[in-house]
């Protein structure tokens, strides 16, 4: 079960501190943190990411990995998947499709998506297999469309996640 981190407690404003920069930043950070928690909860409950992604988050939160570890993993995955999907599209655009190469690329994407916890992309890759094994170009094109759609969804969420983390960091230390 995903448990979002509570936003940091903010002391109530009084005549001495209301309107001060540190309190405004703290309140902004709390609001951003709430947004980030809601985003992450949504990604988990919709099955977009799975326990593997939670494990990566835990590594970062426990201090075992540098801050920015999850962002680095997400960025690598996005770049990798972008390239692989483009390569598969190019293969399927050929008059004679090399289904063995399609297999290799889909397998690679399945591996990277499972390592980062992008569950829906991984499942889309598993769905793809029946079509390249059957050497069905039409089937592969439909399967690629699903992979691309699932990837675009998780890419957008990861990018939003990273933007929120950057904004929270810009508010200063907790």
């Amino acid at each position, binding site marked *: 079960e995903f448990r979002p981190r509570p936003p940091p407690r903010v002391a109530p404003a009084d005549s001495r501190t209301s309107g001060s920069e540190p309190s405004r930043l703290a309140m902004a950070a709390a609001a951003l943190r709430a947004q980030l928690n809601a985003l992450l909860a949504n990604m988990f409950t919709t099955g977009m990411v799975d326990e593997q992604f939670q494990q990566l988050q835990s590594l970062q939160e426990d201090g075992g990995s540098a801050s920015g570890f999850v962002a*680095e993993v997400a960025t690598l995955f996005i770049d990798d998947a972008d390239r692989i999907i483009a390569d598969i599209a190019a293969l399927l655009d050929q008059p004679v499709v090399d289904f063995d190469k399609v297999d290799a690329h889909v397998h*690679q994407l399945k591996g990277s998506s499972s*390592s980062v916890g992008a569950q829906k992309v991984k499942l889309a890759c598993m769905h793809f297999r029946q079509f390249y094994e059957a050497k069905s170009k039409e089937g592969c094109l439909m399967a690629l469309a699903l992979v691309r759609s699932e990837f675009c969804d998780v890419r957008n969420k990861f990018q939003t996640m990273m933007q929120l983390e950057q904004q929270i960091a810009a508010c200063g230390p907790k």
Partner: protein
Amino acid sequence: MELKAKGFTSIKALLVEDIEVCRLVLSTFLLRLHCEVTLAMNGKEAVDLFLEGKKFDIVLFDKDMPVMTGPEAIVKIRAMGETDVKMVGVSADDHAMEAFMSVGADLFVPKPMRMEALGPIIQEVINKKKNDMV
């Protein structure tokens, strides 16, 4: 490329993986378990490290890699007489277990490998190393 967990150098691990994101995730797990991590991008790089005389306590192999696959590398490394080093196959391929075990791997773990699975494997290597030193 060598990575080292600060203050801990007990187990020498070689990670053989061509996909960068998978390398980052697994190497982070290994560092968290206080392993000294060396990275190889394919089976041939792993074989070359052994030919150079490098020693490892555990090697984790992806299956399908350019130049040389994980099972192919295991065959060559075992043929060098490296029978003590623990060889672990790691793959998202449903048929990978047989490919690894038939060539002398000690263990197969499906991708994605979790910390809960890796921890006991590393602990077993630590225990064996301590027993061998006694």
